[in-house]
């Protein structure tokens, strides 16, 4: 059987190879493998020149703006103390605001206990009923009297030095938002978390380096993001989500601010451990992405607006071509393969899958090239054999939720925000 397959493979013409792998070559190889490689070469060259000719001006002047961390949690008693413990004391004169978003558990009590035990500068705000992340953050913003405001999810913990590193890009006054590097806290819990860990490492730790370099960052993940307070206040704070993190990123982009990525400011977060929860999370993300980029903030791509910049257009094209178009192309390709069965259908699929594994393995090399802790990440990179399968499932979910959002605007029915807020807010 194997010899048959190899025989079939060697009999293919170059042109057939190209057609079979067209999607892989056009999308994954060009957009990801090739561009990441170019970036890696560029970064290596820059690191080399910096080593032989260090920039003394930036080295000698520490930049330590005042920072306020805001956290919002609904029934987060299990995680809030660990998050506070990783934040408190990790930066000079840090202020923390915890918004208890209508919890019915011990979230507020645990926070108060932590404050008393550590004598920490924590302000506890409570909402009588759950009102959603956006209003929690806006509530907290009233009291955030610092230059930089950082949002952290209650199910995440910061690695040492993360706050210092995430505020460094704000030296540049044009920078409005900085995204932290979000990694999976317990990647080896099960196969699903293992695969997500790989996705996060390649998509965020490596991928956002490139989008930060090109100025095409779409979102600073709410799990760990830093904002210039003035800028947030000027755009009126957070809007009702879901997807309030990408929404505010895009609104700050419209206001002319730069979005950066701080690759060494690491935050470890919990990811869904069951397929059901994974499905719901991804549906929420995809739906809000459709809402933000195809309706609410579609004008980012209009060249006639006063806030038009080429990077905005590039970002939109990137999302539309390499996420939406590619998604439907893959589905069409697969549909075509299924409705035109040939004796070589299985051989074709195995061949394509193997090539995808090859690309994932190359992604693993890039991850290892960029990370600090190679031993830890090597185990995650070993997930590359499953990654093509994972991305396929992820795309099916994506297709389902995106189509649902385009046709039925399902994001307005997401229980992530309570019913009374969903009923009152505007529909884009």
């Amino acid at each position, binding site marked *: 059987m194997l010899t048959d397959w190899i025989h079939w493979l060697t009999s293919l013409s170059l042109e057939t190879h190209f057609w079979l792998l067209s999607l892989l070559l056009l999308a994954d190889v060009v957009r990801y493998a090739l561009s990441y490689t170019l970036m890696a070469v560029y970064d290596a060259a820059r690191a080399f020149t910096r080593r032989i000719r260090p920039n003394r001006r930036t080295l000698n002047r520490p930049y330590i703006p005042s920072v306020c961390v805001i956290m919002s949690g609904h029934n987060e008693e299990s995680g809030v103390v660990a998050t506070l413990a990783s934040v408190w004391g990790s930066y000079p004169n840090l202020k923390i605001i915890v918004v208890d978003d209508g919890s019915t558990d011990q979230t507020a009590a645990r926070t108060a206990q932590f404050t008393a035990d550590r004598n920490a500068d924590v302000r506890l705000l409570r*909402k009588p009923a759950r*009102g959603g992340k956006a209003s929690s953050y806006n509530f907290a913003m009233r009291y955030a009297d610092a230059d930089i405001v950082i949002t952290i999810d209650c199910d995440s913990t910061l690695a040492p030095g993360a706050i210092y590193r995430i505020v460094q890009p704000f030296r540049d006054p044009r920078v409005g938002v900085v995204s932290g590097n979000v990694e999976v806290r317990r990647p080896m819990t099960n196969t699903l978390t293992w695969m997500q860990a790989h996705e996060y490492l390649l998509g965020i730790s490596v991928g956002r380096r490139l989008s930060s370099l090109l100025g095409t960052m779409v979102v600073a993940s709410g799990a760990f993001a830093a904002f210039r307070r003035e800028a947030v206040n000027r755009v*009126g704070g957070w809007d*009702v989500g879901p997807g309030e993190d990408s929404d505010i990123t895009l609104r700050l982009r419209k206001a002319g601010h730069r979005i950066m990525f701080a690759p060494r400011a690491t935050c470890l977060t919990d990811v869904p451990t069951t397929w059901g929860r994974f499905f719901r999370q991804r549906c929420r993300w995809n739906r809000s992405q459709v809402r933000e980029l195809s309706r609410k903030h579609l004008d980012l791509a209009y060249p006639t607006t006063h806030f038009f910049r080429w990077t905005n257009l590039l970002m939109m094209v990137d999302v539309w071509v390499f996420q939406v178009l590619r998604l439907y192309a893959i589905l069409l390709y697969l549909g075509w393969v299924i409705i035109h069965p040939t004796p070589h259908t299985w051989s074709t699929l195995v061949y394509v899958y193997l090539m995808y594994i090859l690309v994932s393995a190359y992604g693993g090399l890039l991850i290892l090239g960029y990370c600090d802790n190679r031993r830890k990440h090597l185990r995650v990179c070993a997930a590359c054999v499953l990654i093509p399968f994972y991305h396929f499932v992820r795309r099916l979910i994506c297709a389902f939720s995106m189509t649902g959002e385009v046709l039925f605007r399902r994001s307005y029915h997401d229980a992530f925000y309570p019913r*009374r*807020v969903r*009923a009152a*807010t505007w529909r884009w």
Partner: protein
Amino acid sequence: MSADTNTAVPALSRGAVADIWPAQADGQLRVNRRTEGRLCSMSATEIDLALHTPPSRAFPSALIGLPGGADGRSRCAGIEITDHYTTDDGRARITGRFAGRIHDVVSSQWLLPDFDPTTMAYRLPVDPAVMRTWQAAKIYEPVLLDRVAGCPRCGCVPTFRSGCGRCRSGRTDPIKLIHHYACAHVGSVKEYEAEGSLICPKCRTRDPMVGTDYEYLTTHRCRDCGWEESQLASVGHCLACDERFAGNAAQQIVLVGYRRCVDRLDPLAHVTES
């Protein structure tokens, strides 16, 4: 000496072995100098005991235990020593009077702490250091009565109030905020009030309806330091030493009473014997 006919109070025969705990005038027992003696004679007011071993030092008072209590335990009484002397056959003898501090203490079944409003503290009728010696002699046993909050500095009973979590002032005002659901803006009612009606400062929505369009959030602002938080903290204030402290910093004061665990020797019951 004839046998006692009273069944409630078993007879005390001459020569009964007595436990003797020498004590100081303040009532503190010398537990490790406990000695034994024999009963020579006893009246309603006085007792005469022959000691087995002569004491190294004279003592002003003593607690004595004589057999005949419930469950075969001894019965106790306190005496003031009126005389230390040595008989012709060289035995040390003491004569005591049923009176004094020890006698007073042992006559009560319960020793309970009392709240003293002038010092704002609970106080036992007997010094706790003295009480420990009584406990060591197994005359009294401690009984847990209650746990109360006490000033972390002086242990007195403080007063409590809801106050500012920062400066612990009790002078706070509630602040009403409006959360506009549609745009997620949170601002004080004053920010919303304009042109005689409610207008959201973020999205300019006019006259929203409470419940369907917005909700109230409340915080408390301190008049002294300006700190604002959703919940007031529990703040303690000690009226004895004027200390202000966080409610959970109060020390826990364990109120312990003492119960006498042996019977009391009633010398009057033996009046007929003398």
